[in-house]
C-alpha cells in the first residue's frame, strides 16, 4: 500500500504564515519515504491553495521521489483545457510524478456529467493529437457543432501535412492540446460522493478518491460499492489506485472521520479497510502546524503499510 500526506489548508492564518511549514514537511516526507503529497484546491480560507498545480510545480523542483497530486480540482470554471495543460506541465517538471483528483459533483454543486466529461476531455488531451470533443457540457474547440460525434474524435488521416505556422487565420476543427505529459498517462482520480459519478468512474476505470471530510463508515461503504460496480464491469482491481484520505491520530481516539490508536492499531485498522475496499493508497491528512509525529509515523506505521 502506498502512503501519502495532505494538509488542512483551511485556517485563518495567511498562506505566508502556514505554507512554509507545509513545504518543510513535504521536504521531510520526500526524505522519509512517503510516496505522495496531495494538495487540495480551495478558495474559502486565508491559507487555501487555489492553484495546487502551480504550488506543486514549485514542490517538484524541491523533491525527488514524491508523487504529486492535485486534489479536489473543480470543473465549474469551464477549464478542462487548462486542467489538462497544467497537469501536463507539472508532469514534465516533475518527470512523471503528477496526478489529478477531481472534486465530486456534489461538493461543487455541479452536474455529474460535467465532471465525467471533463475527466474524459483531460484524458483525451493527454493521449490524442489533433482532436475535438463534444459533450453536453464540454466542447473543444469551442465551435464544435452538434454534428460531431459524442466524446472525443480524432482528425481523420491525411496525405498532406501543413505546418502549424502556415495555417494562417483559421480556427481548426481539431486541435492538439500541448504539451503532453511526461508519463504516458498520469493517474486520474475522482471523488465518488454521488452515485452517478461512482458508477461512471467504476465502469470507466477512473480511480476513486475519498477525502478526509467523509466519515469513515460512509467512505468504506462508497469504496465497497465502487468495487462491486467495477467488478461487475469486468474492471480489475489493479487498474486503479483507489485512495482513501483520513485523519490519523497516533495514540489518540477514533472519531467519525479519524482513525486513532497506537502505531500497531492504526496499521491494523488501515489494513482492515484495505481488505474490505481494495484501496491501494492511504493519505494522512494533517494539520498545518508541523508535528513531531511525522518521523514516528514514518518509522513505525509506514513500513508496516508499505510492506
Amino acid at each position, binding site marked *: 500500500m502506498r502512503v501519502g500526506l495532505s494538509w488542512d489548508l483551511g485556517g485563518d492564518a495567511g498562506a505566508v504564515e502556514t505554507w512554509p511549514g507545509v513545504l518543510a514537511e513535504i521536504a521531510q516526507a520526500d526524505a522519509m519515504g512517503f510516496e505522495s503529497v496531495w494538495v487540495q484546491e480551495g478558495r474559502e480560507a486565508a491559507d487555501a491553495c487555489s492553484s495546487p498545480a502551480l504550488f506543486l510545480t514549485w514542490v517538484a523542483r524541491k523533491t525527488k521521489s514524491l508523487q504529486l497530486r492535485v486534489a479536489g480540482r473543480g470543473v465549474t470554471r469551464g477549464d478542462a483545457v487548462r486542467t489538462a495543460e497544467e497537469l501536463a506541465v507539472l508532469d514534465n517538471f516533475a518527470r512523471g510524478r503528477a496526478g489529478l483528483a477531481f472534486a465530486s459533483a456534489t461538493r461543487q454543486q455541479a452536474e455529474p456529467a460535467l465532471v465525467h466529461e471533463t475527466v474524459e476531455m483531460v484524458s483525451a488531451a493527454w493521449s490524442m493529437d489533433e482532436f475535438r470533443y463534444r459533450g453536453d457540457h464540454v466542447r473543444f474547440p469551442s465551435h464544435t457543432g452538434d454534428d460531431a460525434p459524442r466524446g472525443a474524435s480524432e482528425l481523420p488521416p491525411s496525405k498532406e501535412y501543413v505546418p502549424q505556422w502556415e495555417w*494562417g487565420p483559421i480556427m481548426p476543427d481539431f486541435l492538439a492540446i500541448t504539451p503532453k505529459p511526461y508519463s504516458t498517462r498520469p493517474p486520474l482520480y475522482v471523488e465518488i460522493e454521488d452515485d452517478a459519478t461512482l458508477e461512471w468512474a467504476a465502469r470507466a476505470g477512473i480511480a476513486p478518491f475519498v477525502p478526509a471530510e467523509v466519515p469513515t463508515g460512509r467512505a468504506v461503504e462508497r469504496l465497497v460499492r465502487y468495487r462491486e460496480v467495477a467488478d461487475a464491469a469486468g474492471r480489475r482491481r489493479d487498474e486503479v489506485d483507489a485512495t482513501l484520505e483520513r485523519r490519523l491520530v497516533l495514540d489518540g481516539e477514533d472519531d467519525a472521520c479519524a482513525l486513532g490508536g497506537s502505531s500497531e492499531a492504526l496499521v491494523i485498522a488501515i489494513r482492515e479497510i484495505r481488505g474490505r475496499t481494495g484501496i491501494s493508497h492511504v493519505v494522512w491528512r494533517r494539520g498545518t502546524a508541523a508535528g513531531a509525529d511525522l518521523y514516528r509515523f514514518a518509522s513505525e506505521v509506514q513500513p508496516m503499510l508499505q510492506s
Partner: protein
Amino acid sequence: MKFWTTSIGTGKLRGMPSALANGYDSWIADAKDAERLGFDGYGAPEHHFMYDGFMPFPLQALAAVAAETTKIRLMTGAMLLPLYDPMAAAEAAATLDVLSNGRVTLGLGMGYRPMEFDGLGTAKKTRGARLSEAMEVVRLASSEKRFSYEGKHYQYSDVALHPEPVQKPIDMWFCGGTSLLGARRSGQAGFGYWLANSPYEHTAAIIEEYRRFGREAGVPEEKLRIAAFKDVCMGETIEEAQGMRQVLIDGFYEEHILGYGYLVDENGEHVYNPPKNHPMYQRFVDSLYCGTPEMVVEELKRYEALGVEAVFVPSPQRELLAERVFPEFR
C-alpha cells in the same frame, strides 16, 4: 535601467531536438544563470495548442524558477489575460507571489491567435476591453481584503482573493504591442506600459501618447511607467550583429511570431507569413537592433532618455550584455 530576459526551452525549436522535460530544465538553468549575471527579471510567455509543446501557463513555469532562485523577479511576458477567468489568474499570481516572497511581475497582453481563443472558449473580438477590465480585477483582488467590481465583461460582488499575495497590489504591466490604442487604454487606467519591439521613432510616439492619456486621466506621474521589449543583437562588427539577428529570426520569430499573424498592418489586418519585402516585415526586422556593444549602450541610453525604465532583452548574448552593457547603466 533594469534588464529583463528569458530563454528558449519553453517549447522545442526546429533544428534543436531535445526532450521537452530537458528543455524545461535548461530553461530553469538559464534563469539561474540570468540571476547570477545580474539580470533583474526572467520572463515566461504564453501560447496554447502549439505543435512544439510551448508552455501554456507562464506563472506555473515561473513557480519552477522560483524554487531555484532567490532574488530575480519572475515575470510573465506576456500572459494572455483575456484567456483566463480574472480571479483564477489572480489566484495563480498570488500563489506564486507567496512561494517566491513577492517576486512576481505580471506582463499582461491580450493575445492574437484565433485558435487560442476558440480552443479556450472565449471571444477574440472583446479581448482589448477584457484585458483592461481583467487587469483592474487583478489589481483590486491583490490589494483589497474584499472587493466588488462591476464591469461590462466581469462582475464580482464582495469576494476575496486566497491566498493573499505578498505584494499589494501585485506588480503589473500592460503589454500593448505597438498600438496607440493599447497605450491610451493603459495610460488612462494608470497601468505601466510595456511596448513590443518597435523602431525608436514609433516608440517615442507611443510613449508620448501613453503619457498624454495618463495625464489627462489624472494619473500621478510616478505611476506612468514604461518598459520595452528590445531585442538587441551584438557583435564586434555590424555584420556579426546582423548574423545574430538572423539567428533570432530564423530560430524563433519566423516560426513563432510571423506565422501566426502577430504583425498588424495600417488597416488593422493581421499579416500572416509576410513576404520579406513587405513593409511590415521590414519594419519588424528593423526593430531588432544590431550593433556593437558600444552602439547598444548608446541605443539603450536613448530609450532611457525617453523614460523607459526596463528593457526585455533576448538571451543568446547574456554574458556579453552583463559584461559590456550593464556597467553603463549601474
